[in-house]
């Protein structure tokens, strides 16, 4: 005679029945009874309700119910069943075979059994609970160590530090939920004073999400260095992710490229939450169409741009904020986030403002439901020397390195500066300088490889016009041969060539070179003060 002790409370072990039968036999010990499959009472079996409601031992032979479990008990020779009920729940049954004396169970026997059941049920329940908790603890431990791995992967791939950007304040915030989600962000320094910003979210959680996140981040970093247009970058990453993407997973991601001098932010969005930009006039949304990454190859990503004026700030965020709930299960939502951005003062950090609002909304005891990620970007107000000097972008273009393409550069720059009313001779000189600089970039920087683009950017401020020509050549000292000497060239002591840089320097007011990690830039500057009055 034994009670069942399996974690599943409504399970009856056949062993119990064996034991009961064994008690009816004269000789062998119950311990010798072979292990048998438990008798289960299905949740919809009427016997379950009957046992649960029974206040005393039940005569199995006398019981008439359409119950598979009852039929099994009868077949096994069980005469008396004593339900063990704790707090209204059936947690076991004592099954007894025929009495050894071949008499029926007396009312004293029954009373004794009922008393035993009343004592045993709570004790059995405690035993069951302990076992359940032990099993849960093992599961939890395994789960926790997996979470730890996910957390490690995640944190390893978040930037350790943010780049210094004069004239800008960049801040990032990342707080994983207990069950780590797939949020990530990145800030990628790019050639020619540009910086890439990424905020993304991988569907799913835990280790799989963390792995997809790290792959996405690496692909983004690689493409961001090679491609200029944010839409192309997302398109490339999407194509690379698609073949290896686990089923039912995808990545939402916003990618923006900021020109820190001009404040031009170009961005594309793969289905991620729309960033907000706070300007002197209010709050705008940075919308651009695009499918999440990893769903389908060959996607196109719309590209938009916004110019951040001094004092403007941008909030990139993940859905962990807007999908947070208050105690009444209302969502924080986009309108509330937008309001928060609108009301933030320029003195206080936007991230702090959002976190304060969020904490007030969810209440102090709320468990964080999802990862929370924010990246903010604020252009310094006030005396922003670098920004004021470089002004706004009039044009930005990318040319493949093919002979003759400098003409395109010249035409584009001429169009871009058309409204500035440069005196004709100044314009002609600028055009020649742009042509020579572009040829130089295509030939010496990019070795006329069509896959290596030349990037040309035209910037204008009150007193300066600047054209920056960037190639993908390795960091180098620009070839600066001896100053061309026509007589030496005519005598054959110098090669006929070698006029490019000489001309450039004569054509513009300033020419600056700078080599960065993966690009070389030649900047041509026309000082505009006095133009229109005494320009030659």
């Amino acid at each position, binding site marked *: 005679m034994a009670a069942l002790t399996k974690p599943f409370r409504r399970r009856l072990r056949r062993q119990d029945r064996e034991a009961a039968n064994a008690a009816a036999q004269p000789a062998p010990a119950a311990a010798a009874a072979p292990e048998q499959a438990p008798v289960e009472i299905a949740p919809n079996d009427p016997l379950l309700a009957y046992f649960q409601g029974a206040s005393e031992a039940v005569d199995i032979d006398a019981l008439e119910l359409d119950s598979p479990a009852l039929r099994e008990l009868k077949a096994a020779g069980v005469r008396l069943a004593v339900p063990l009920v704790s707090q209204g729940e059936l947690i076991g049954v004592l099954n007894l075979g025929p009495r050894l004396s071949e008499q029926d169970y007396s009312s004293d026997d029954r009373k004794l059994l009922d008393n035993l059941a009343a004592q045993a049920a709570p004790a059995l329940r405690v035993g069951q609970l302990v076992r359940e908790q032990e099993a849960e603890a093992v599961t939890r431990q395994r789960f926790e160590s997996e979470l730890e791995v996910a957390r490690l992967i995640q944190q390893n791939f978040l930037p350790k530090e943010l780049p210094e950007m004069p004239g800008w304040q960049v801040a990032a915030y990342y707080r994983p939920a207990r069950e780590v989600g797939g949020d990530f962000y990145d800030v990628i320094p790019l050639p020619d004073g540009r910086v890439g910003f990424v905020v993304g979210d991988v569907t799913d959680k835990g280790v799989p999400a963390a792995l997809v996140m790290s792959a996405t981040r690496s692909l983004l970093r690689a493409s961001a260095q090679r491609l200029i247009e944010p839409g192309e970058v997302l398109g490339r990453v999407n194509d690379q992710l698609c073949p290896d993407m686990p089923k039912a997973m995808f990545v939402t991601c916003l990618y923006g490229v900021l020109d820190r001098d001009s404040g031009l932010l170009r961005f594309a969005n793969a289905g991620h939450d729309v960033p907000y930009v706070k300007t002197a006039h209010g709050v705008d949304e940075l919308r651009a169409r695009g499918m999440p990454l990893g769903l389908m190859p060959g996607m196109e990503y719309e590209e938009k741009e916004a110019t951040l004026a001094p004092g403007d700030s941008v909030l990139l965020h993940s859905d962990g904020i807007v999908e947070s709930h208050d105690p009444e299960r209302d969502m924080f939502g986009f309108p509330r986030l937008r309001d928060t951005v609108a009301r933030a003062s320029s003195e206080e950090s936007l991230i702090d403002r959002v976190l304060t609002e969020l904490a007030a909304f969810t209440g102090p005891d709320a468990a964080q439901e999802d990862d929370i990620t924010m990246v903010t970007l604020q252009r310094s107000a006030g005396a922003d020397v670098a920004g004021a000097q470089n002004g706004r972008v009039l044009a930005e273009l990318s040319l493949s390195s093919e002979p003759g393409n400098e*003409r395109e550069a010249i035409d584009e720059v001429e169009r871009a500066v058309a409204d500035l009313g440069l005196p004709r001779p100044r314009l002609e000189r600028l055009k020649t300088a742009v042509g020579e600089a572009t*040829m130089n970039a295509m030939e010496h920087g990019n070795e006329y490889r069509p896959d290596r683009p030349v990037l040309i950017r035209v910037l204008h401020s009150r007193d300066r016009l600047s054209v920056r020509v960037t190639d993908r050549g390795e960091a180098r000292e620009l070839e600066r041969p001896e100053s061309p000497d*026509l007589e030496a060239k005519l005598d*054959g002591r110098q090669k*006929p*060539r070698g006029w*490019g840089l*000489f001309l450039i320097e004569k054509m513009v007011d300033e020419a600056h070179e700078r080599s960065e990690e993966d690009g070389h830039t030649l900047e041509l500057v026309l000082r505009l003060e006095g133009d229109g009055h005494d320009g030659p």
Partner: protein
Amino acid sequence: MTVHELEVSVRKEGGGAVVALAGELNASAAEALDAAYAEAIAGGAGHVVLDFERADYINSTGIALIVGLLAQARAQALEVRARGLSDHYREIFEITRLSDFMTIEGKEHA
């Protein structure tokens, strides 16, 4: 972008030859310019006039071609003149000192 070939024509004028250049004077113009120069001196010209009236783009490689042509002419003691230069290219000829080695005809002569 397509590279526009330089179109060159040679005609006689007085005791010299006029080499009229139309289009872009860049690296791809080398052959055409060489051929034109050869044609000009083959006719026994006493001097060569380069007419830039319709040359709308001259880059540093184009300048190098002119330098090469000028070196050849110097070796043959042949005078080279330039005609039809815009103000901008006239300035470039001055900056590079090409104008010290060839006569720049004013617009009134073009």
